[in-house]
């Protein structure tokens, strides 16, 4: 490392620390807060400085990891989106989102295999299988809304959260009993690697086509959701319910129907996530643990913000890949396992509602 590769990141780090400190001025309440913020700013500055030093040493490799991390982060966002939709509309912290991805994936891959085995052409089989999986998700939404959520109306968040864990067990068991519990390969998207920006870096940067597809799909999904929320009657009703249940009900919005729609939309988001993740890992039980990967994404972005889920995913994806490679050699591998959570904890200490969440206002 040359002197310049130390001085530049050091400068960037110092500026960043100052910036963070200045930005957070209005948010501090006590001396403890100030100290915590200062420490966090220092750690963040150190980490970014450290990364900057590595980036200057080997720009090609750094960009490759950064882009790869960002793209895999988008895939986390796909799962996190479902959480956000449900939390916004019904205040339920839905642990079952990962199980819903599993259900959707299993329904899709098994029906697709079945149709292909019957001799249906691939072009016809894929839409049919997607339709079938969508119908299964609608059934899930109906069952959960009718038998889990509606009886638990007006219970506190913790009880609802536990109920969704119960629903997770039931969904996992049912999906595996009906559709089988092996690893089923799914290949809707190309998974071969490709090389980009060869002119800029020696050797170019290597990324997986699937990740690019994932990013494109996530983009389309977010735009679709935004249009749906903004311009349709149901979408407006959804936003009204998210804003205030009681007020929405009093102007005549049928709340249980809206909740069904929300769970259905979350189920369809899970289906989209399942197509990408199923292609990446194969449809298998461990897909349910995606829920645990998506939680820090939510925390960072804020429970109530759709753009937050995307930005959170990007931060988590890039952060954990970079940390795994550059910090991993210092303190041992497998950092990916917890890095996102510690990052989320740090973000929460500064902004308790996440980066894009609505400001939490408390009254007595």
């Amino acid at each position: 490392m040359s002197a310049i590769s130390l001085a530049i990141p050091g400068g960037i780090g110092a500026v960043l620390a100052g910036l963070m400190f200045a930005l957070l001025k209005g948010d501090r309440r006590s001396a403890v807060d100030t100290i915590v913020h200062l420490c966090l700013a220092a750690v963040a500055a150190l980490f970014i400085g450290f990364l900057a030093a590595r980036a200057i040493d080997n720009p090609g490799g750094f960009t490759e990891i950064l882009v790869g991390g960002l793209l895999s982060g988008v895939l986390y966002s796909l799962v996190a989106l479902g959480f956000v939709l449900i939390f916004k509309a019904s205040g339920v912290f839905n642990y079952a989102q990962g199980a819903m991805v599993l259900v959707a994936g299993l329904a899709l891959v098994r029906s697709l295999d079945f149709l292909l085995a019957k001799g249906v052409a691939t072009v016809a089989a894929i839409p049919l299988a997607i339709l079938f999986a969508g119908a299964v998700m609608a059934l899930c939404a109906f069952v959960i809304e009718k038998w889990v959520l509606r009886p638990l109306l007006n219970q506190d968040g913790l009880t609802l959260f536990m109920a969704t864990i119960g629903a997770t067990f039931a969904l996992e068991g049912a999906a595996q009993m009906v559709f089988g519990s092996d690893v089923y390969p799914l290949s809707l998207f190309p998974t071969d690697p490709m090389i980009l920006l060869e002119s800029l870096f020696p050797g170019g940067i290597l990324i997986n086509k699937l990740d690019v597809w994932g990013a494109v799909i996530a983009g389309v999904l977010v735009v679709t959701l935004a249009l749906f929320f903004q311009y349709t009657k149901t979408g407006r009703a959804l936003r009204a319910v998210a804003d205030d249940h009681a007020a929405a009900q009093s102007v005549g919005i049928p709340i249980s129907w809206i909740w069904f729609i929300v769970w259905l939309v979350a189920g369809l988001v899970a289906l989209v996530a399942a197509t990408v993740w199923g292609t990446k890992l194969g449809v298998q039980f461990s897909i349910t643990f995606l829920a645990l990967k998506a939680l820090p994404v939510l925390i960072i972005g804020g429970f109530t913000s759709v753009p937050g889920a995307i930005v959170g995913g990007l931060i988590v994806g890039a952060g954990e890949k970079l940390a795994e490679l550059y910090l991993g050699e210092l303190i041992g591998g497998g950092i990916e396992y917890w890095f996102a959570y510690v990052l989320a904890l740090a973000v929460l200490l500064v902004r308790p509602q996440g980066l894009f969440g609505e400001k939490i206002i408390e009254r007595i």
Partner: protein
Amino acid sequence: MLYRETGQFKTTYASDMAIFPLRQDRNALLVLLAFAFVGVPLLAHLHIWPFGSEYLLRAILLPFLILALAAIGVNILIGYCGQISLGSGAFMAIGAYMAYKFANGIPEIGLPALPVLASILLGGLCSALFGILFGIPSLRIKGLYLAVATLAAQFFFDWVFLRVGWFTNYIPSGSVSAPELNFLGWVVDDPVERYLLCLIFVSVFALIAKNLVRGNIGRQWMAIRDMDIAAELMGIRPFFAKLSAFAVSSFIVGVAGALWAFVYLGAWEPLAFDINRSLQLLFMVIIGGLGSILGSFLGAGFILILPILLNQLLPVLMAPLVSLGSSSGAHWLTEFAHHMSSTETVSHLEFIIFGSLICLLLIKEPHGFARLISLAKEKLRLWPFPY
């Protein structure tokens, strides 16, 4: 008719503030304790069903007691202080691994191998320290955000105990085993002794916990739980109240973790304390009843025994189906019966029933078994003339 307070006059402050003001409650508890301390070992010694079987002691009573202890710890944090934690498994792990380190001595700081009892308590103390550390965010973060934040502790410590060789004394397999359980000269070995040991721990900690939550500090916790801003305005220090709840809770959970590792498992890996353990403890506390020591026991019993029961019952229930399938001529029925009775399907069915029962319980009684018990007591006081 049997459960009346008539004629039981409280003539001293002590009797007014008793844990069990009713004589019937006291007697019931005494009988229960006598049965647990004397009856069960005696029956086990005489090989009287069902206590004669080692299975009951080793696979049901032992984990029940230890998990009930852990559930008491979790209940202090979640039920009494209102701070939702999903990191209980990590604190159990800290208790277990630090107790292991203390029991084997830490040469780096010149500490010789300590007696088992001291190691277990010191393990709990270490857990309390980290509990305070990971409790600091609770001063700013509330509710479900805090729940996810505590997951950071869970994942971080899972990784630490898996990757950092120091905690496992650099054993290549990563699986460490408990030292000889010598408690002040009493060598705990057979299942009855293990059971008695855990029973002593649970009784002592349940008593301590019950008295803590009845006292000044417990009232502070409850004030924070009910509304922390109002509590702060009344002069309760959130800093002290929240962190003390984290400390006490993690201490008890840590001791339970050390017992789980030393007495129940014997040899263990970090996997024994993963996120599923945390969720299991959370279930116990919620199903049992938030803010109730009795509820911790009931919840622990239910969550522990339900899967065992399903595991034993389902194959029996499936048996007629199998014989029906093989006797009938229909091909699809045979196929179906074969599919339904496979171990895989039974385990999936277990999942479904367990999950659905949890949902059902939450819907029918969101306040847990403890509420059911207190309702039953209310009814019993008026029985048989409820007017």
